Structure formats: C-alpha cells, structure tokens
C-alpha cells in the first residue's frame, strides 16, 4: 500500500504566537515544530505499514516555508520512507482552500497512492477542514476523525467518536483518512531512526512542478480576509486562598454566592 502522510510545520504552541501586520500568522519569528496532532498521523501510517508487513511505503508530504523541512525530517526519523516538500514563496498566506489545492496536486504527482493520512487539525489554524477538502478534490471517500484504525485487504475501517454517536465507518482505498489524538501515542525517533533518516530521499517541489499558477494561492488569492486582530487582555489573577481546616470550601462557596451562582 502506498501511504502519503500530510504534515504541517507550526509555531510552537507554548511559545508566544502572534500575527504579522497583514493578519497572517508569524511563521518565521517563532520557533516551529512538527504539529503534534500530525505525529499521530505519522504513527498510524507507520503502524499500517508495519501490520501489512509487505513492501508498503510511507511518503511524508509538507507544504510550507523553508523551515517546514524540519517537520518532514522528524517524520523520516520516526520511520517514514521518503519526503516531499512543496515550497514556493507564492504559497505564503494561503487559506485552507488554496492549501488543499496544493496538497491535492502534490498527492497526484506522488502518483500511485492508496491512502492519504492527515492529523485531525493543525495546532495553529486548527480549522480541521483540509482532510475533507482534500477528499473532495481527489474525488475519494474520507474517513475522518478516526480514534482507531484497521486495515483489511482493500478496506480501511475507523472508529469515530462523534458528538451524538460512536460510529464504525469503512471505505475502500483509495481514500483520505484523518486521525485524532485518541488514536495512540506517537513514537519517538530512535537513534537508529535519526541516523537512517539522513539517507532517505527528500524531494523539493515548486508550484510550477505541480502546474499551479502563483495567482491561485497565497494571501491575495485567499477567499476570506482578516480585517483585524487583537490580543486579548490577559486575565487578571484574582484571589487565591489556602485551605486550612475547611476554610477553603467555605471561602469558595462564599465566592460563588457573591457571584450569584448559588
């Protein structure tokens, strides 16, 4: 089975994330890393390959600026077989619609693919719409928000913990799948994995390689605009009391009563 995993390089959530003047996310001034939610996608792809135990291959695909190659490297260190990095100045500021176009064309160029695996959402934009858009563009079924994954011949089956029901959903390859952080801890790269990754093939493609015009992507082609961004005022720390012989509960209930919650 040929598996493609889509990963995103994102600003570190524990750092001070911010916006540029044009309303795009600052992706240069803040340390970045492989989106933690995409680690789960890499993990599930590797597990599918390992369970099949045949000549299945995992290709990691990332669309993003120069430093996004770090996200691909980390995935190769975890065990993916090869990497594709789509990088082009024109892509900066692309919205989800344009991003899904670039990913779809890159998947097509990768060629004979059976399964595309995505994380449930990025940890920065966190829209969670790209997997569905990708399926729409590629004209294949989507198994989204899987919390466990099973492969049986040509059929992929997931468990999906929805808001109103837990469902089992299946489809025949080729298909797009996304997995949640409930799907199982992602592995850490081993020392061997880190060494091996250095020799794995990594290709860099531009928009021209994908037959996409620069006018189709980027901030100016976005189908929505940010009008303004505003930092929320930090919350001011209120009163904190230390419980001694039941004083904590009494003070807590007194506070709740003063706010009319009791």
């Amino acid at each position, binding site marked *: 089975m040929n598996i493609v995993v889509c990963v995103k390089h994102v600003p570190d*959530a524990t750092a001070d994330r911010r916006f540029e003047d044009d309303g795009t996310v600052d992706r240069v001034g803040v340390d970045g890393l492989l989106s933690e939610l995409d680690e789960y996608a890499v993990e599930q792809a590797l597990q599918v390959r390992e369970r099949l135990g045949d000549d299945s291959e995992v290709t990691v695909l990332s669309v993003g600026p120069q430093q996004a190659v770090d996200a691909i490297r980390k995935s190769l260190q975890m065990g993916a077989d090869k990497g594709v990095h789509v990088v082009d100045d024109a892509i900066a500021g692309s919205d989800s619609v344009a991003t899904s176009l670039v990913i779809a064309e890159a998947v097509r160029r990768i060629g004979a693919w059976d399964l595309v695996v995505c994380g449930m959402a990025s940890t920065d934009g966190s829209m969670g719409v790209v997997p*569905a858009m990708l399926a729409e563009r590629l004209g294949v079924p989507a198994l*989204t*928000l899987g919390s466990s994954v099973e492969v049986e011949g040509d059929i992929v089956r997931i468990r999906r913990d929805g808001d109103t029901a837990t469902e089992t959903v299946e489809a025949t390859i080729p298909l797009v799948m996304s997995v949640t952080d409930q799907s199982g801890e992602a592995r850490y790269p081993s020392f061997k994995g880190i060494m091996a990754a250095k020799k794995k093939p990594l290709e860099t493609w531009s928009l021209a390689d994908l037959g996409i015009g620069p006018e189709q992507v980027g901030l100016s082609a976005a*189908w929505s605009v940010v009008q303004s961004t505003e930092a929320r005022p930090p919350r001011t720390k209120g009163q904190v009391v230390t419980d001694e012989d039941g004083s904590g509960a009494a003070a807590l209930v007194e506070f709740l009563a003063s706010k009319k919650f009791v």
Partner: protein
Amino acid sequence: MSEVLVLVDTLVDGKVGKPTLELLTIARRLGEPVAVVFGEASGVTDVLASYGAERVVAVDDTEVREHLVAPKAEALSELVEKAGPDLAAVLLPSGGEGKEIAGRLAVRTGSGLITDAVDVQAGADGPVTTQSVFAGGYTVQARVTRGVPIVTVKPNSATPEQARGAGTVEAFRPTVSDAARGARITASAPRQASGRPELTEAAIVVSGGRGTGGNFEEVEAFADSLGAAVGASRAAVDSGWMPHAFQVGQTGKTVSPQLYVANGISGAIQHRAGMQTSKTIVAVNKDEEAPIFELVDFGVVGDLHTVLPAATEQVRQRKG
C-alpha cells in the same frame, strides 16, 4: 431580502438543540433564515419557525443516514446552487461534522470559509465574523471575499431569540455521487444521555483532571449541586476515567460558560484553549504554583478530596 441557509444540527431524541436556535437568531441579522433538516422534519418545523425559519427544507435522508458527511455536503451544495447569487450566507454548527461539510461546500461552490466563529454580524461587505484564536489569546475579525460566505459557528455565540417565520416545509431529494457513498457507516452506538446539561451549552461547567486520581464522583456531586455540566482534562480522558466526549481543550470541546471550575487540572495551554474565554474561572489545586491559578478569579490551594465534598454540602445547604 436575501436568504441564509442554516444547517440544523443532528437532532438528539428528535429535538432541535440550542446551538441551532442560536444559528437561526444569527441568521436573522443577515437575511431570511432557511432551515435545512436532514431527517424527519415534521416534529421540529414549529420550533424552527418560531425562531425565524421562513422555509424548512427537509432533505430525504436515506443516502445520508448510511454514509459519512459527504452526502450532506453534496445536498447543501445543490441547495446553494439553487438559491443563486442572492444567498447571503450558509451557517453551520462548528462540530467536527459541521466543519467538514463546510470545507467540502467551500471547495464545491468556490466560496470562502470561516470556521469557529464566536460572533457574526452584518457588515457593508457581507457578514463579519469574530473568532478566538491561539488558545483564546487573540480575537480576529474576518469576512469572506468570494462566493457565498460559509461560516461555522460555535455554541453559545448568541442568545436565542424568538421571532415567528412562515416555516413553509419543502421536501428535497439530493443527487448523491458515488464518491460520497464511499464511506459507509457500518455500526453506530448513540451516546448515552448523562442527565446533565450539554457540556458546550451549560452555564456552569465543573471539570476534573489527573488530580482527581480517578474519583470523579466528587466532581460530579459538586457539578450536580450547582446544576452544572461535567468536563475533564485530556489526562483524565486518557486514563479512561471519562469518555472523550467530556474532554475540554484543543482536541476536545471549547466551552465558554458563565462559570468554569477546574479541579485537579494544572492548566496546560491545550486545556486553556478550551476554557480560557469562560466568564468566571475558579480552580481547586493542591499546588499553589499550578499555571491554572494565573487565570482564576478565585482559587483554592488545597486537596480537592476534602474541598469538593465540603463545598458540595454547603451549596446544598444554602439551596435548602
């Protein structure tokens, strides 16, 4: 006046949820609401009309029921095309399913998409949305510049207000493609009702984390004394103490209640992402250095196993 399509969230026990009434209320700011119902609409037409639906489109759901998401997107996309360029917006609930439908709809109809709005207002160039991003650290205002604005809206983004609409019912049978029939639902177990308020809709949420040590009874008892919903951190969910549907945070639910009480929760950025915009925040934690205390309006440094049962008792006494 131009129309606004409103996707009615999956009916639970055949009933329309509060988020749908919020969507209809928001839709009235932008145009005439048209409610789109997947499934049996006769039982809900009246309530949809009483919140402003001029038309109720009941989509025949035989294809929809057995397949995941895609047929709903195709049905909506047909309805968008039928409505023509005059359509003011499409509003959808911001759950996993609503966002996927929205994403597909954006690609199919060549329209811009905004997800997770916490407010939508009419503007000179179409609807202006407000989103809360980066774990609630920023507020962003945005609008769609191409096609029909497609907006997914979070629960609690408006106070539902009644205003009678005509509520004319029309049946609609969508054409569903083979690709959309690809993802087959082979088993479905409805979520058990907890008897407590819905997490995302509740005025008060009482949550527990790793610090509960797995004993959620104290958290639940305190929640019940306040008439609150129960939430959990991912650590509590990962430990198998609570189902994932109760998780608050980046990969769980975002809540924005009047009061959020965090018990035995350290306050990691990913948890904060799901509760930081709550009006009043209270925490009980035995570690005075826990980051959650940076957010609180009121905090107790103490053992939740002693503080919560005592507080529960006192709340009950006050309520008589």
